[in-house]
């Protein structure tokens, strides 16, 4: 198996990727998923630094595991243990990490655009692991991978993303990814969290749960980030659940073979009931597993294609 030719040095978002580039990542991820672990030393001797300035379990572990499976040396830095708590700027932290010989930096940060800022400062590839409400490209790629695994080509498929869209990087990255692969994307949820202005991006916006679920081939639920919104965006979790929560009764509105996705962490009983989250339609755990393969592909492409050494 060879690593395909790859041009972009960084992975900052999906919006700037072409369909061909997305396909390359997914194809490599599939090959890596099928290759026994011991044969995957593509990144032996490379140093991958996970710079996580915001709490993360799934993404950080998946990137760590991906790098370790590829035999890279992985260093994970969390905000609390870094000099950023001592007032060092992101710029200085990154320059130091580069000076220490990193071959790639995986950044999770609460500020939109911070990976782009980083990529302008340092020479090594920057991989965006989520920047504020901007993008979360590796999540969207693993969602694509999982969806294609289940329902094949996404061309012409109807996919609904439901929940807090406004503050969601997952929603934005998935919107770009799914649209580029030919799917029709509906963004659904309360009007304060799914403003009509998303239509300017080319999305269909719906505030009617039944209508938005009706002929969807897949439904992606997003966590209601109640710790993030002040009380002004929706009255309460209870009200959200009553109006937009996916429960057993409402599952009748769904197609029988609908695929249910959720990037996690799930608020069981809020955006989705346990029965549905754990049903045969749910691919939530496949998403997690595929997340490792997809991130292996991302690390390989970005790290190996960049000739800084």
């Amino acid at each position: 198996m060879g690593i395909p030719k790859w041009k972009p040095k960084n992975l900052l978002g999906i919006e700037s990727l072409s369909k061909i580039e997305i396909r390359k990542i997914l194809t490599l991820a599939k090959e890596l998923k099928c290759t026994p672990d011991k044969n995957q030393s593509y990144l032996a001797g490379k140093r991958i630094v996970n710079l996580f300035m915001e709490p993360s379990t799934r993404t950080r572990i998946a990137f760590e595991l991906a790098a370790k499976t590829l035999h890279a040396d992985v260093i994970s830095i969390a905000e609390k243990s870094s000099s950023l708590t001592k007032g060092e700027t992101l710029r200085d932290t990154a320059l130091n990490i580069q000076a220490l010989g990193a071959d790639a930096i995986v950044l999770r940060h609460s500020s939109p655009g911070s990976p782009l800022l980083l990529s302008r400062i340092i020479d090594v590839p920057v991989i965006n692991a989520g920047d504020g409400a901007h993008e979360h490209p590796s999540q969207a790629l693993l969602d694509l991978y999982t969806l294609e695994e289940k329902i094949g080509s996404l061309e012409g498929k109807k996919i609904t993303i439901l929940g807090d869209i406004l503050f969601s990087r997952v929603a934005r990255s998935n919107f770009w990814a799914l649209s580029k692969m030919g799917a029709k994307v509906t963004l659904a949820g309360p009007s304060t969290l799914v403003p009509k202005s998303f239509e300017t991006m080319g999305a269909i916006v719906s505030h009617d749960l039944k209508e938005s679920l009706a002929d969807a081939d897949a439904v992606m639920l997003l966590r209601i980030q109640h710790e993030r919104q002040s009380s002004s965006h929706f009255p309460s979790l209870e009200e959200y659940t009553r109006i937009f929560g996916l429960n057993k009764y409402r599952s009748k509105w769904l197609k029988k073979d609908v695929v249910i996705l959720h990037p996690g962490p799930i608020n069981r009983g809020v955006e989705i009931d346990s029965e549905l989250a754990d049903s045969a339609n749910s691919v939530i755990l496949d998403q997690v597993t595929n997340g490792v393969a997809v991130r292996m592909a991302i690390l390989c492409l970005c790290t190996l294609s960049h000739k800084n050494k």
Partner: protein
Amino acid sequence: MKTICLKGARIIDPSIESDEKRDIYFRDNKIISPRDAKNIEYIDVTGKIIFPGLVDLRCHINDLSGGNGENIFSVTRAAAAGGYSTVVLMPNLNPIPDNPATIQFIKDQIKKDACINVKLTGCLTKGSNGKVLAPLGSLKNAGVVAITDSPLSPQNNQIFCKAVEYASMFDLPVIDLPRDLSLSKEGNAHDGPTALKMGLGGYPRIAEELFVQRAISTSRSLGTKVHLSSISSHGSVDMIKDAKHKGVMITADVSPQHLALTETKISNYDTNFKTTPPLREEEDKKYLIEGLIDGTIDCIASAHEPVKEYEKNVEYDLAPSGVTSLETAFNISLKVLSKHPKFTWINLLKFMSLRPSEIIKIQGGSLQVDNIANITIFDPLKKWNFISSTGKSRAFNTPFNNSQFTGKVIKTYVNGVVTQNDKIKQNN
């Protein structure tokens, strides 16, 4: 005393709406009649355009003196290079000018370092914290030309209304940069299509418009003047237009950057495009330009807001707002407005010299005899490239770095003295 005669230029005098070729004479700090001229030094300025020194109603600095940011010394040189003879400093200074002693202290610094006229504003509330009225009468006596909490706006409506009412007793202009913080607290960008994609936003038009309405209603009910600073939303233009039709004594300014740029410029997270208020959409820009031309918006204020490079070189949402503007404001305004079919030079100078002077009630915007010799000479043909690092300002946070311009300010006389000299042949 020697008289200087600027010979052969096109003279724009917005105070009498004149645009004609004639000579202009001044001695000491005053413009004089040719009849009174003796001992004349002729300066040939054929082909150049002469107009009254520009007056700026919104200028911020970082330090008074020294420091590593923009201070009185550097900002006045930048302003002179941009053709300004007067700037009005906003009160976000250290120390903060909310008492007469501080005003006196800052005036001493100005006397020491400034090469153009610097006028002071006093705080509207103590410490600009929006809670308690500042001693407006004492501030007026100490010499401020207006009161404002810019770049903040008092959030408490009662404080605002009472400040306007109280200041009217002293005939002291009130300037407000309209912003309802409850709608824009963490706002780092206009809630438009660009910010939506970028995961930014939080500074919608309505945050400005509600406070524009507050100013209009206050002005209307009290029958007193209020000046709105840095209008950015098309809704604001509509409201002001309507209010002016009804005779409300509201005035407003707009910044050159809001006339020239829109939100699409922030798509690369370039913090040099982050301003207060934020850049908005094409529709807003159109309204702002039309608003100036039709008289709804009275003038152009630079909104010069220097930010140190290392402070700007951070994540977009964490970076301070502000762009520098003084050195490019005239060129940008000329470039944008000259494309309008109703553009005239007289109007441009009304926007940038006469009306700002009227709003803060200072002499300016006129080249008539007996006026102070604040005179700017502009070479309309000179092509130049603005590079922020070689400019006079100590801050580089301009959205117009590397811009090509045709026409350049080559000389600025302030009180009859040259402050900016870009090679003019002098004949004795």
